[in-house]
């Protein structure tokens, strides 16, 4: 073993990642960030200081043993690294791509105090991609325990919860309303950020754990949460239906044709392939000059999809400045490079239509930043007399979502004032055995936070069902022979003296 690494001895520069040329990529749906190769990966791994109390692990919503998998990678035991990674996160190739690492693991990485932090996300992605290519899977020995778990929604929260419950030995069934699994990963995140084949590969990892996925099933309407417990013999249910129900602003002209939510745009394009109309039957009717309202990650996705489908001009309209915008800096930078026009401190007040009821323009007002509001961000205030007309023929709203009402309409679960499902610290709802997590509890957030919630709910469910949850990982090779006394694994060291009568 070499001398202990210090901030002075590690490679000083963060290993750059190859990206597609902005001019080129703005015309295709291939991935923007191309990912590390082996040499780049090993170089970046050397930048990890192997902190004994790793801040990054605490910074990760699902608690991946980050120094652990990096150490294995350095040892060139890539499959071992993958196993460590997937003990905590079944979807490394997805999370490596879409997690906001700068706010999580990389945001707390001590290397980042002096230099750029270790590119943990890129390392995660490299391992995830390698595993897909090599066909690896991390299937632990699973001892069936007879419990049946129903999961509502196959998005990140549902997948994470399903994986943990399946590993614990439960018989898990995931229900999805769409015809393909993945939830927001499928309908929301475009191919150039997350290719469908990556979703397919990582969701199939669930199937290897024995999880059943039933598509075309709208829970609440086809059967209710109550029926799942009472008639369908599920011992516990997890609800991860996401937020849905997009917000509009309530300004005049919103029902003109050419005004739509980012959810609709993305669903048409990502799930239904509207970009390939008429080979696929779903139309989009793309505008020539698209204006997207909002500056979050969804707004960036919507704009970049429109650009790739051939819109002449795509603009972002946001009432605050770049500093307050909620999107990842990387996404905003990519969008800027690709030629998206940004109109900061601008808010729409009315949408104007032509005689055929199509969008013709948008009346906007300039804003300035005033005093900080409840969110701590400076409140945008309209500048009087600054109205102007903005020419556009398609307006996309990406200003967030409200709670989806279906589960609330069809069950007796307690909801909060905004219609989200109420849950306690363990994510248990008002109904015994029913847990909920992700956007349907918190409102719109990120993929990894939803996954974190799914894992937390799984922990709560295991406690509810009385499943021993030692966070102990059964390694595949020791699988079938873990026959300690009374069926306990000797390494668990949880048994105390038993007195025989």
């Amino acid at each position, binding site marked *: 073993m070499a001398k202990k690494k210090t901030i002075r001895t590690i490679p000083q520069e963060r290993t750059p990642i190859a990206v597609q040329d902005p001019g080129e990529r703005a015309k295709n749906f291939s991935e923007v960030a191309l990912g590390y190769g082996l040499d780049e990966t090993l170089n970046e791994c050397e930048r990890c200081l192997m902190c004994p109390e790793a801040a990054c692990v605490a910074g990760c919503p699902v608690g991946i043993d980050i120094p652990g998998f990096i150490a294995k990678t350095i040892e060139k035991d890539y499959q071992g690294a993958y196993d460590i990674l997937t003990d905590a996160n079944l979807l490394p190739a997805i999370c490596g791509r879409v997690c906001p690492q700068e706010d999580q693991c990389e945001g707390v990485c001590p290397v980042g105090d002096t230099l750029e932090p270790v590119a943990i996300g890129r390392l995660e992605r490299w391992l995830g991609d390698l595993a897909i290519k090599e066909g690896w899977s991390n299937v632990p020995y699973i001892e069936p325990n007879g419990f049946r778990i129903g999961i509502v929604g196959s998005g990140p929260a549902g997948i994470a919860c399903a994986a943990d419950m399946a590993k614990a030995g439960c018989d898990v069934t995931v229900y999805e309303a769409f015809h393909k699994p993945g939830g927001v990963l499928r309908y929301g995140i475009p191919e150039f950020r997350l290719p469908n084949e990556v979703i397919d590969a990582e969701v199939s990892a669930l199937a290897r754990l024995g999880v059943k996925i039933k598509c075309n099933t709208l829970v609440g309407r086809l059967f209710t949460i109550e029926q799942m417990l009472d008639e369908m013999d599920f011992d516990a249910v997890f609800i991860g239906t996401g937020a849905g*129900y997009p917000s509009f602003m309530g300004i005049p002209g919103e*029902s003109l044709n050419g005004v739509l939510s980012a959810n609709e745009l993305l669903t048409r394009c990502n799930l239904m392939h509207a970009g390939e109309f008429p080979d696929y039957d779903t139309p989009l009717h793309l505008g020539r000059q698209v204006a997207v309202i909002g500056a979050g990650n969804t707004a960036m996705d919507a704009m970049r999809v429109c650009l790739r489908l051939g819109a002449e001009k795509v603009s972002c309209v946001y009432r605050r400045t770049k500093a307050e915008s909620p999107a990842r800096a990387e996404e905003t930078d990519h969008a800027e490079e690709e030629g998206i026009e940004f109109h900061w401190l601008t808010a729409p007040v009315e949408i104007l239509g032509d005689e055929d009821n199509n969008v013709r323009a948008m009346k906007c007002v300039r804003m300035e930043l005033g005093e900080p509001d409840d969110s701590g961000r400076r409140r945008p205030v309209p500048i009087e007399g600054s109205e102007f007309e903005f020419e556009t023929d398609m307006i996309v709203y990406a200003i967030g979502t409200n709670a989806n009402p279906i589960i609330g309409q069809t069950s007796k679960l307690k909801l909060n004032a905004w219609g989200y499902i109420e849950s306690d610290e363990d994510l248990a709802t008002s109904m015994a055995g029913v847990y909920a997590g992700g956007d349907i509890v918190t409102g719109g957030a990120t993929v990894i936070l939803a996954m974190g919630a799914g894992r937390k709910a799984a922990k709560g469910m295991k406690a509810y069902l009385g499943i021993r949850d030692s966070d102990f990982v059964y390694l595949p090779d020791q699988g079938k022979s873990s026959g300690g006394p009374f069926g306990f694994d000797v390494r668990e060291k949880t048994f105390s003296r038993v007195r025989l009568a």
Partner: protein
Amino acid sequence: MGAKSGDGAVLSKTIDPLPMVDEEPAVEIVAREDFSDVTYLLEFRHPMMAKAAKPGQFVIVIPREHGERIPLTIADFDRDKGTITLVIQAVGKTTKEMQQACRTGTTLFSVVGPMGEPSHIGDLGKVVCVGGGLGVAPVFPQARAFKENGAYVIGVIGFRNKDLVFWEDKFRKYCDEFIICSDDGSVGIKGLVTEGIKAAMDNHDDIDEVIAIGPPIMMKACAETTRPSGIKTSVSLNPIMVDGTGMCGGCRVKIGGKMQFACVDGPDFDGHQVDFDDLMNRLKRFTEDEKLAVERWTETCRAGKAS
């Protein structure tokens, strides 16, 4: 280890072909009936859905893998047989293609449902159930439910002409009074269904509710007919939808000046509150694309026949 520099860039196509999703039993069509050149009935097997379906709800069908999601109101459900019935008009590319492709024994790529809030079948004394054209099918389960609930049901159905009439007997069975109208007078009263509603209102001054389903222009006319008397009038709206689960907002409609989503807040709404002009404008959203799709499809059909 097979990873070389740059390998991360392109994922190999040799992803494990392990079945990703549990293979669902395909949704099989068990009966088909043609009412006219453009109107046809499909009955498919889905026992769970038949058990859950209630009057007023709809399903979303994707007929084939590259297809679009189309919302169709449930026209009938048989819990014993485990089937759901849809009555479809071949107006766009997808419904024309289904008319050609869907036969007894064929399968649909995806059907999800039931969706939407069920109609409220209260303890009402007297109701008028109005179906215009294709709307006869979706209003039928409501008429039946009201009848089974002990209400006095007046059925009013209308068609353009005699040749388009369907389900007359089936509908009549659940009605205490039955009025049929046609635009050209070839069957029943000559005139629109609003004539039938007026006739019912003239004969009865104790109507509790009118339920009207049909094209938006017909539902608008029905709502205007009952507005002066203030009789509660329910209509079922059919805007353009994508997911049908409240997620996209494509189906937003104006109800009493407020925005609602037809898929989860409806599809039934108070007809006196609905902004029908807004609905009709929004239904024209994809006119050009629809035309293109039909033209292209008709061409491929011709080419297919020629070869």
